[in-house]
């Protein structure tokens, strides 16, 4: 058995008295793709932040390999329009070497945008830019929090394919959070179905027939319904929950 990059044992976390994670175990092995799925409020992002070291668990053990180098791709970049910054400069913040930045952009297929202002990139291009920045640090673990947000369906597929390719080329482990079961199934080694605790986990094919999984999501063919923990503006972009007065929901009258 390979030496684990990250090992979580019996992790618990509560916010203001509400349990978000209870007794969660998670082992990330080198070059393994793990996908976290679960309904909103299931603690996926919380778990990711604990792995990243951004949050301290209330209880449980967290062990990381001394060689661990994390490349992190956040859910969404919310950049103020007043900040004049090009894609090139954005990458240079993580890696001053221009040749390395260029090759990272080539990896994700957007080197032609290098001199564009970051705000002018489309949703998919911006996700690729974030991905480029996350691989710049030559990570052995990529942590991707909903990497395909704001990307159209065709783009989602190619982005997942790209993540799979990057794993092979960089030989790094991947921990990602996803909403879409079907797309994730093909590109992942292990699915962890989280709803505060780990409902079930295993190879995608096993998980999709697991009773706990079906209870949580319905059968594989059933439409995947879920509640959003975020809101969308009229362009479909995700915006911060805390900052907007309008709560977008299925009973909204606008389109």
């Amino acid at each position, binding site marked *: 058995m390979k030496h684990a990059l990250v090992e979580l044992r019996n992790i618990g976390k509560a916010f203001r008295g509400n349990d978000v994670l209870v007794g969660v175990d998670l082992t990330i092995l080198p070059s393994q793709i793990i996908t976290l799925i679960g309904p909103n409020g299931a603690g996926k992002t919380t778990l990711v932040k604990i792995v990243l070291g951004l949050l301290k668990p209330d209880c449980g053990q967290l062990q990381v390999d001394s060689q661990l180098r994390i490349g992190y791709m956040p859910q969404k*970049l919310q*950049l*103020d329009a*007043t900040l*004049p910054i090009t894609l090139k400069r*954005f990458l240079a*913040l993580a890696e001053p070497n221009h040749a390395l930045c260029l090759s990272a952009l080539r990896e994700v297929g957007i080197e032609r945008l290098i001199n564009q202002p970051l705000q002018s990139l489309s949703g998919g291009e911006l996700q690729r830019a974030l991905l480029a920045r996350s691989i710049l640090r030559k990570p052995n673990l990529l942590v991707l929090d909903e990497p395909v947000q704001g990307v159209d369906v065709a783009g989602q597929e190619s982005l997942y394919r790209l993540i799979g390719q990057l794993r092979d080329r960089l030989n790094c482990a991947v921990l990602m959070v996803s909403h879409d079961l079907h797309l994730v199934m093909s590109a992942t080694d292990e699915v962890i179905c989280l709803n505060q605790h780990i409902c079930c986990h295993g190879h995608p094919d096993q998980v999709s027939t697991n009773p706990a999984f079906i209870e949580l999501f319905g059968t594989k063919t059933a439409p995947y319904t879920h509640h959003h923990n975020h809101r969308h503006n009229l362009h479909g972009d995700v915006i911060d929950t*805390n900052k907007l007065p309008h709560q977008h929901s299925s009973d909204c009258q606008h389109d």
Partner: protein
Amino acid sequence: MIEVLLYALLAGLGVAIVTGPLGAFIVWRRMAYFGDTLAHSSLLGVALALLFSINPTIAVVLICLVLALILVALQQQQTLASDTLLGILSHTSLAIGLVAMALMPSVRVDLLSLLFGDLLTVTIRDVVTIYIVGAIAVALMILLWKPLLAITIHEELARVEGVPVTAVRTALMLIIALEIAIAMKVVGVLLITALLVIPAATARRFSQTPEQMAIFASVAGCLAVLMGLSASWFIDTPAGPSIVLSAGILFVLALLKRE
């Protein structure tokens, strides 16, 4: 007589140079209201300085820092929205400052000059203070430029990449406190935010990089000081408000530039 103008000019330019890059960060990080709150609290710093006969610059810096740290701590509670919290602290601290001044009958304070600045009474000592404190603020910004940018773009990403986010944020608070302490004399506590935000917003239309925006904001601030001080000198308008008005005029002129 001419040294009055010279000192005023030197003081104004010294402050405007610092407000350029700092204002850019205030705009990028949407901290205008935060800056305003700290500026209002500086009145309390002045009152305390008078009460205990300590150096007002040091007192203002300390009070601003303490309030900044309280604010950051309170914002993490998230029981009240940030702007509500800032609204409460901003005006409460201004009120405490005003009440404290009124309760000290032994000292006569020119409240108007504290609120709106009194550039034409600047002494050589004030000028020296402005340049020393300003130099510290600028040095800190140059030293921390890259991590400051990194946490402005994405705080958690910066943290994962090894930026000591809390330390950098605290340093930014310190820089804001330093700037408020020296800008008070020039535009007064009520108009400091204007001097931070307006030149930076003006500079945005001419800038392709963060550094350009910071430098152009300093240039716009210096121009506003020159214009405002001229108005004050020749047509006897109050200096602080004239500088802010000039900054506003420059912003409107910049809007005419085609993007």
